[in-house]
């Protein structure tokens, strides 16, 4: 995959002003209103028994929200899976790189047109650069025609230290944000694969501007942007 110079651009500074988040009753959690989620919720509440894929960290809140609406949620923590140390291989130049082919053979292995909705959250901002486009292509394939995908992207103003959150749906237009803390222990899966977070937590890898986002989702039928006051762009795309 071609390396895009824009992915290297990052000159933002940490900015707290304009944050619309507020403390949540839950420990270490903030809540924020989400227009993108509200739009997606209209789809979720208007139809029964949808197949919904959540590729953020495991969220019991989201599973409850979706099952209460009668949907079938699928959970797959792609960011966590992408940090599997065994995915690191040496390329022909002797440089360490992620084995994207193996990653895609072990993750997102769904039949074509399986899902009505995909909740991507902020995955693209924190995932290794080489995986982003292949993962979006795989998601396009996994979505039904007319299916919707919700994704969040930081603006430059968010700063390089923007913490990685997982998002819990607490109401149709409100999300609870929980900082993803690094696990100190390495977790070995039942098949022996090691799944662990980076020791320092997940770091913002890049910033997409609107044009980059449109390019990333160019195979989709439509794209809708929602501007927020907390340095995040919400994007709802439809296959």
């Amino acid at each position, binding site marked *: 995959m071609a390396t895009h110079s824009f992915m290297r651009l990052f000159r933002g500074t940490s900015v707290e002003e304009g944050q619309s988040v507020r403390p949540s009753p839950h420990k270490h959690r903030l809540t924020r209103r989400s227009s993108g989620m509200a739009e997606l919720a209209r789809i979720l509440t208007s139809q029964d028994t949808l197949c919904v894929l959540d590729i953020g960290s495991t969220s*019991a809140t989201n*599973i*409850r929200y979706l*099952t209460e609406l009668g949907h*079938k*949620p699928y959970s797959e923590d792609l960011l*966590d899976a992408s940090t599997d140390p065994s995915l690191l291989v040496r390329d022909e130049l002797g440089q360490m790189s992620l084995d994207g082919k193996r990653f895609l053979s072990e993750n997102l292995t769904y039949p074509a047109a399986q899902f009505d909705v995909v909740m991507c959250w902020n995955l693209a901002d924190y995932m290794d650069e080489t995986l982003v486009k292949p993962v979006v292509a795989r998601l396009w394939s996994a979505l039904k025609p007319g299916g919707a995908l919700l994704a969040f992207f930081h603006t430059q103003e968010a700063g390089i230290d923007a913490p990685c959150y997982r998002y819990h749906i607490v109401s149709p237009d409100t999300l609870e944000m929980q900082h993803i803390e690094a696990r100190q222990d390495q977790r*070995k*899966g*039942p098949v022996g694969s090691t799944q662990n977070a980076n020791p320092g937590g997940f770091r913002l890898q890049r910033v997409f501007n609107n044009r980059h986002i449109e390019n990333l989702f160019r195979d989709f039928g439509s794209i809708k942007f929602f501007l927020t006051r907390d340095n995040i762009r919400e994007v709802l795309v439809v296959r």
Partner: protein
Amino acid sequence: METPKTADVAHIGRSVVVKGELSGSEDLYVDGQVEGTIELKGNSLTIGPNGQLRADVNAKNVVVHGKLEGNVRATERVELKKSAVAVGDIFSQRIAIEDGAYFKGKVDIQKDTPKAATETAIKSDSGRVSEANSAEAVPAGVAASAGTSSGAGTSKTPVIEQKKF
């Protein structure tokens, strides 16, 4: 973590390895390794923190502290504790997932019986716990068919029968 009462729960200790089909009519606590299938219709399965299962599970209630790869069918409730690593699909009337649990798969809430309200219970940092009943006490009689078994640590060892693959 609550420890099972050994008097009414069959126990597979951490050093035990079982390959094959396990079935029984009493509750089962697994802290060892099981590969195959587990059938405990009407009874509960608890996978301890050291438990590692590569098995499809059919039980009344399933509680996971350890690692499980396989599909789970529970007639009442599935509970993933914070240390759980579960990969596979879950079919159950209720499911409770603690904050910190890792889950990869599908959740399919079953609505077969009238009391099967679509309730997904959550136990999170806030400490809210589901209202689902715990496992019921169980009569005796475990019958298991398995391939290999080794080690000790069982407080009530199931009957093991050989089964070749």
